[in-house]
């Protein structure tokens, strides 16, 4: 019953774009989890991916470029009852917005962060991003890029994310499962989704030949050593699935404690605070 999570807006992604799969997987996950649309907030960045809020019948905040994480953090802090899911592009998440990632991770903010990693700036017509493979020719690198790409999984692990996964937009079922697990996870859940961009970097065939599921290999996602090892695998075989998962206190656990959720306006009787000024 993922239909209740959709809207009637015309979808303007290029036909065949990997974003469709992410949209579907997310709607499926919501349906499987039986979440009420009103309780869910989708925060999206600027880029092709960012339009996802238009296609989701859940609360939406289409924010500025690169700020999905602080936005989502603020929403979750203010109202811990909401299920907050951030959707970012690889440009959004790893170029302009990378400075927020280590902090959201180490704080263990209880949100899900889905990166639509198409390895290009899609909406601005295909320039290279921090995940573009070395040497690729794009409009801003007509003679090939000159920077080595980052490894998002290794990065997320090194900064202490408590749930680290990779999905593939060519496998909606598996992606649905990952998103469900991520939403269920208490704490910061990070999913880098290999998302083919049919217009600027069509990687369907490439990935189809290479991806395999960590679950199928009996990967132990409670071991950070194992996770680090798997994170560095990229080539003929590309692992997808949950690399790492651990349970630790969330930002809200530590910060809100048992306070009334901040969405409630509660004036303080300031007379009680006068002592130090007297």
């Amino acid at each position, binding site marked *: 019953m993922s239909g209740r999570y959709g809207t009637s807006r015309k979808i303007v992604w290029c036909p065949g774009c990997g974003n469709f799969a992410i949209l579907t997987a997310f709607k499926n996950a919501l349906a499987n989890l039986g979440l009420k649309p009103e309780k869910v907030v989708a925060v999206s960045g600027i880029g092709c991916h960012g339009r996802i809020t238009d296609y989701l019948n859940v*609360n939406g905040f289409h924010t500025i470029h690169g*700020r999905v994480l602080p936005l989502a953090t*603020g*929403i*979750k*802090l*203010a*109202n811990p009852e909401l299920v907050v899911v951030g959707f970012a592009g690889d440009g959004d998440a790893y170029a302009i917005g990378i*400075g927020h990632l280590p902090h959201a991770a180490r704080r263990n903010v209880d949100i899900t962060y889905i990166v639509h990693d198409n390895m290009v700036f899609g909406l601005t017509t295909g320039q290279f991003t921090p995940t573009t493979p070395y040497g690729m020719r794009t409009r801003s690198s007509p003679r090939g890029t000159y920077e080595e790409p980052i490894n998002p999984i290794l990065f997320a692990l090194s900064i202490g994310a408590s749930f680290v996964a990779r999905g593939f937009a060519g496998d909606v079922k598996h992606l649905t499962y990952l998103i469900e697990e991520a939403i269920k996870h208490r704490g910061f859940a990070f999913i880098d989704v290999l998302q083919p961009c049919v217009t600027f970097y069509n990687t369907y065939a490439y990935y189809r030949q290479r991806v395999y599921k960590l679950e199928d290999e009996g990967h132990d996602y409670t071991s950070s050593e194992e996770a680090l090892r798997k994170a560095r695998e990229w080539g003929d075989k590309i692992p997808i699935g949950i690399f790492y998962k651990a349970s630790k206190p969330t930002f809200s656990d530590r910060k809100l404690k048992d306070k009334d959720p901040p969405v409630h306006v509660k004036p303080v009787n300031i007379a009680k605070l006068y002592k130090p000024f*007297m």
Partner: protein
Amino acid sequence: MEHIDFAFLVGGEAGAGVMLTGRIISKIAMRSGYEVFATNEYPSLIRGGHNWFLGRVGTEKVYSQKKEVEILVALDELTLKKHEHRLSSNGIIISEVKKAENALTVPMTEIARNLGAPPVARNMVAVGAVTGLLGIDIKVVEEVIADAFQPRGKQTVEINKKLAKEGYSYGEAAKGSLGFILKKRQSGNKLFLTGNDATALGALAAGMRIYFAYPMTPASPILHYLAAVEDEAGIVVIQPESEIAAINMATGAAYAGARCMVATSGGGFALMTEALGQLAMTETPLVIVEVQRPGPSTGLPTHTGQGDLRFVMHASQGEFPRFVIAPGDHEESFYLTAEAFNLAERYQTPVIILSDKYLAESYKTVDPFDQQKITIDRGKIVENKWKSNEPYKRFLITSDGVSPRAFPGTENAIVRVTTGEHTEEGYGTDNPQQVIKIFNKRMRKLEEMRKEVEAREDAVKTFIAGNPAATIITWGSVKGPALEAQKMLQMKGYGTALLQIVFLGPFPKNKVSEILRKLPRPYILAENNATGQLGSLLREHLCLDVDEKLLKYDGRPFYPEEIAEKVEEAVRR
């Protein structure tokens, strides 16, 4: 009744406890029934470097420091060198070295040593000497010291009391030599606090529940204070990774329905610029406190200035409504901050409270704030459930431009916002007719805000002293020195008017114009900046030229004497 008005200055190296000394003396004076204003200066470093604290004490309300000091407490030699010239003719120096006739030599370090205290504790001897000299009731002195050191344990309290007592007897020996003593006066309970404190209390009184700030002088004390009372006040205080994170988190929290606030100084505000437009476009209310320090760039981090007025008025791409409010004193810092939350929510717009180091870090005695006066008006909000049959539209077109605001989690409502131009439902669009509709809707809020500022009594204030022969025009913290200048001028026989513009955006042009029509020229503009930014607003909105500009931009606040002199010159001309 006796009229008392004197100043004391405590100077010493950073780390020598100069500020604490000054605060304790001030509080003792306050608890003895006197009014106090106090300001300070310190360089941007942690130890070493010269700090000073300047308190002014009076039987009547005191609005600013003054140039001459009656008591100069020198915790080091440099203080003497730097400030001796300020000593009034009847003034007294308190120091460890015999400098001159008018010096009270107190072997502070020796006393500390004798009592087994570290040298840095000598400052409490100084407190004693000052209060002895002023003939203050020793009980008050002990009380204040006890309160100040109580968190550090009983023993610390006792030793500091002893230190003060020793100093007291040195001071007492010269009691009366200033020509006055501070007899205990009847007066209600007062509070001694900074502009930053007042802002923080205003936010708490308004029901703010989350505060986000990346440390930045001179706004950091708000962070420190709110963090200290976090649990007591039942709020949440977050120090994010940057100002960009701070304002975006706050935007998320405000979207979710929390009253929240951020504070920073110019450099941090610069980083918030992009998100300011996001607030406007998503019609998310937020109170942003900008405590100015002199720029450009890092500038003078621990000093004061008013160079950011135009910047905050025009910051961020595109055109949109915003309030810019500049409190001029501590009471205004409190009440206007509290009111800022209402304005933000009623108009679903960012509100910038523009303060500066001088206001934010200066202390003043104030009457306890009247929380009764503070109402909570969240504007058009949808509580718990959307009940209409029409589907909820976050950006519903309305005649006043304000749409009912639901929060995510509201039953029956999907709250969709976007930083792109959008439909009433919050879907993206670039259709020109649609775009204009929503743009105009936002701009109608600006029209309403204009009416609001024209109607508000507190948008513009006038202070008349005597029969005015000139008008001082100013904004923000210059108010204090200007009020004192008015007193000085009146004593010299010059009546003046003072026009303080509190709401700078939207600019209350009709109101200002009407008031000014009744006030006499010469108009003298006084601002803590180099280009006269309020002056440029007067030209832009009223085509009005002032007659004289008094602009100070060395990072220091005005002395009332400087304003008085300028006015006198202008009137004489």
